């Protein structure tokens, strides 16, 4: 490809570059359609039928129906586009962002009120910060599942 990517070593972070943009083109364009109130209504009335109007991959459609924003992002979605799905559902940006961490809404909100997530250990993949792969999903549910506490 020849595109230099100095940004692939940041944990829990996908940079929306030309390659992601190409991969996510129709997913993101579907999201743009939700800027119109009549399209939001049509989507909510029959999600599957509405998604089938777009040249998205089956995986992208599944990811949208599951409201799994991390999954949407892996298939090329960008958060500013995906936010239109959350808006259609009446969710806030904080709810959407939090949903990608595995935390409950309250856990995420408390983290933010407490000063947000620390950058320590979260600068490079392989450190030990809370955003690193081996600490996912975050929050009590995740810790319990991993038998940590």
């Amino acid at each position, binding site marked *: 490809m020849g595109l230099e990517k*100095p*940004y692939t070593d*940041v*944990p*829990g*972070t*996908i*940079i*929306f*570059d*030309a390659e992601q*943009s190409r991969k996510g*083109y129709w997913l*993101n*364009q579907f*999201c*743009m359609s*939700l*800027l*119109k*109130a009549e399209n*939001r209504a049509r989507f909510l009335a029959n999600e599957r039928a509405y998604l089938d109007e777009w040249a998205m991959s089956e995986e992208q459609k599944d990811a949208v129906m599951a409201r799994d*924003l*991390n999954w949407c*992002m892996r298939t090329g979605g*960008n*958060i*500013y*586009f995906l*936010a*239109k799905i*959350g*808006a259609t559902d*009446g969710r*806030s*940006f*904080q709810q*959407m*962002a*939090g949903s*990608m*961490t*595995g935390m409950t809404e309250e856990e*995420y909100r408390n*983290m*933010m*009120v407490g*000063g*947000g*997530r*620390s*950058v320590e250990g*979260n*600068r*490079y993949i392989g450190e030990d910060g809370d*955003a*690193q*792969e081996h*600490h*996912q999903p975050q929050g009590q549910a995740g810790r319990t599942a991993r038998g940590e506490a």
Partner: protein
Amino acid sequence: MAKITASVYTSHVPAIGAALDLGKDKEPYWQPVFAGYDFSKQWIKEEKPDVIFLVYNDHATAFSLDLIPTFAIGTGAQYAPADEGWGPRPVPTVQGHPELAAHIAQSVIQDDFDLTIVNRMDVDHGLTVPLSLMFGNPPQSHFEWPCSVIPFAVNVVQYPVPSGKRCFELGKAIRKAINSFDQDLNVQIWGTGGMSHQLQGARAGLINSDWDNRFLDRLISDPAGLAEVPHIEYVREAGSEGIELVMWLIARGAMEDVAGGKPAKPVHRFFHVPASNTAVGHLILENQS
């Protein structure tokens, strides 16, 4: 002649707009955010700018993946608040300044900045939230913004986004353009977006107050050095959406001290965590004549 009298820097978090529109600004969560702008509201009432050159980014609202301008200048007569999915914000239509905007476009393009000229677009929270923060939401009885606004949209959504250096140089060219407009106008230039925040993935919610405050320090006293910071540092230290801060360098590059004038005078500085997912930063610099 037109003259830039001051630059204003502020985050443009959508939740701030929602809080204000829903009357939540007095709630304990939001009160400290809005309190940081009390000085600014008074200040701008006295400053009475005629035109604000407002640097912001579109958040997949006016620009889809069909077309992504690196730099877009609004030369239209007006711009409606966009429906971003929650319905349009209940704020006034933004009145442009077609003559000054066209003049700046001409001058800056001739200085080798490859602008896209836009005559029709809706403007999203990136542009309207700073107006709300600085002016408050206009009352129904007088439903208009107090001055003209020239929207200047920067691509910070799809990489590669313009470098800090490019933004800073662009600011210099904008200053030159505004200073050569032969109408007497009090112009402010605003840089918006940031500060540290990440809206995606396992690292969502990242805040780096130390880095943000160093950014504010250097924006005041060492903007040229700050402009050299590469994108990857913004991403790593300030979160993937912290990259919006490059836009502040456009406003900073337009100040007189950069062109050999007297030092820009900080008259207000504010920092608060959090607003929704984001660290809120705010700064006002005046040109000293």
